[in-house]
């Protein structure tokens, strides 16, 4: 579905933000893209829907090359994107106007826009926000509204670019639950995050460091890879504990998503064996 060959990119000359990236992503996958500040992960996903175009190499989405300008609208219809800062992705004065924006661009008739907008808002459980100004919303509500504006175009793949980084823990859970639900419904999900507690939601992890891919594989094996020793990556506390326990003889624990009850049981057994 998404084919990337030898992609290199730099904002300035002699500086490579991305260096010979080779990746392919299949339909229906849930990929977490991780890495420290400035590792190139955001630059990478912006190539996927043609917001940035490769200096070298190529990006193909459903066999459409992003460098062919006439393909861009079709590509962006298939790949939607939600950004980090909820406030600067709004273009409408109210939520429903904003949600309608994409369909207006595709020149849908008014009645169809109205139906789809209402449906999209209802699906995310935010119909009551339709007439509100984005300034009246909480961070979590804003991200859901922004997502509604992407889903209304019925994309096959949604990219989330650090969407939870400005949210409190409650909204974070709400947004993550929505993302998981979308994946279950068959959408391809690409989620950029620096919070490694979120990677277990994805089946696959791609880790960036200095513009190169340092890990690309199953999320359950990510914490076993040398990539986690990179300075930009911070291991969640429970994972760190689980890793230590495993080093000391615990078998079969899921280090990418350690369950507190299971950790407790294991430590208890460890104790009673003394």
């Amino acid at each position, binding site marked *: 579905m998404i084919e990337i060959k030898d992609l290199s990119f730099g904002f300035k000359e002699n500086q490579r933000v991305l260096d010979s990236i080779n990746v392919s992503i299949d339909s229906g996958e849930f990929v977490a893209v991780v890495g420290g500040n400035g590792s190139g992960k955001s630059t990478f996903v912006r190539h996927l829907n043609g917001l940035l175009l490769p200096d070298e190499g190529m990006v193909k989405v459903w066999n459409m090359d992003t460098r062919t300008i006439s393909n861009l609208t079709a590509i962006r219809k298939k790949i*939607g994107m939600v950004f980090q800062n909820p406030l*600067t992705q*709004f*273009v409408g*004065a109210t939520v429903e106007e904003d949600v*309608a924006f*994409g369909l207006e661009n595709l*020149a849908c008739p*008014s009645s169809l826009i*109205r139906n789809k907008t209402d449906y999209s808002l209802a699906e995310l459980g935010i119909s009551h926000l339709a007439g509100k100004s984005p300034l009246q919303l909480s961070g979590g509500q804003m991200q859901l509204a922004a997502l509604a504006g992407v889903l209304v175009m019925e994309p096959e793949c949604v990219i989330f670019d650090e969407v939870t980084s400005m949210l409190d823990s409650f909204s974070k859970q709400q947004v993550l639950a929505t993302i998981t639900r979308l994946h279950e419904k068959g959408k391809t999900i690409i989620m950029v995050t620096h919070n490694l507690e979120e990677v277990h939601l994805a089946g696959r992890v791609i880790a960036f460091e200095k513009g190169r891919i340092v890990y690309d594989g199953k999320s359950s094996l990510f914490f076993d890879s040398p990539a986690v020793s990179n300075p930009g990556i911070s291991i969640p506390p429970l994972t760190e504990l689980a890793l230590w326990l495993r080093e000391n003889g615990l078998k079969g624990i899921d280090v990418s998503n350690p369950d507190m009850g299971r950790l407790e049981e294991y430590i208890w057994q460890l104790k009673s064996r003394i």
Partner: protein
Amino acid sequence: MPDYFLSFVPGDSFLHKLDPRTKLIATMLISILIFRLHITGLVLLFALFMALYYLSSVRIALLRNLRPVAPFLILIFIFQLFLVPGNSFMDLYGFSATSAGFFEGLRIVGRFVLLIQFASLLTATTSPAHMTAGIERLLRPLPGKVLGVTSFEIATMMSLSIHLVPVLNRFLKEVYQAQLCRGLGRQKKLSGLVSLAIPLLRGAFRMMDDIAMGMESRCYQGNYRTSLFELKMNKNDWLVLMLVFVLLLGFWNLNITLLPSYQI
């Protein structure tokens, strides 16, 4: 009551339900008429305004709308009162107030007051989204290729600016507070103003970059696009437009026939 000058008041009245194009054209025609008329005509138009005002069921603060322009209106009135030649009825420091000046001042001030009130009635009963949709449709016949900008782009620019003013306002407040905390206004006043403008511009540009990216990824191309709000002229719209035309033609020469004495 609206928070700002010329802001929208949600409602369900006859005026709210009119097509924005009808309201825009009607307001334009009435404005033309206002500049044709003299005092009697203006009084009649004011009566029309009051009727529409009650019909709209929005309670806009009529006097408060005038507050921002009040000093200018007073100044204009005083200028007219003293500078128009005619029969003097009062002398002040060698300047004489004339009755002709009095009526002339009243006429000019009356025009401005009426213009503002009709405009505020338009904005109070038309949401910004409908307004931009209406303007877009009215501008569509313009040759976009020749002008270098299409009606769709103009409409998008308008709705973006409507949306962005409060966002920028919030941003400005944040920057200002940060500067206050670092001793702004304790020593050098002017440099403070300059250093407020620079981050605001920077912030605005960066915000624009982000917004442009969001728009692009939602397939924005600047060419033909539709709107969530369907515009439809119904019977009432045509009726209102017809009435306004009749009004325009009927009142066109009103002052000359009714009250020629005020002509100077």
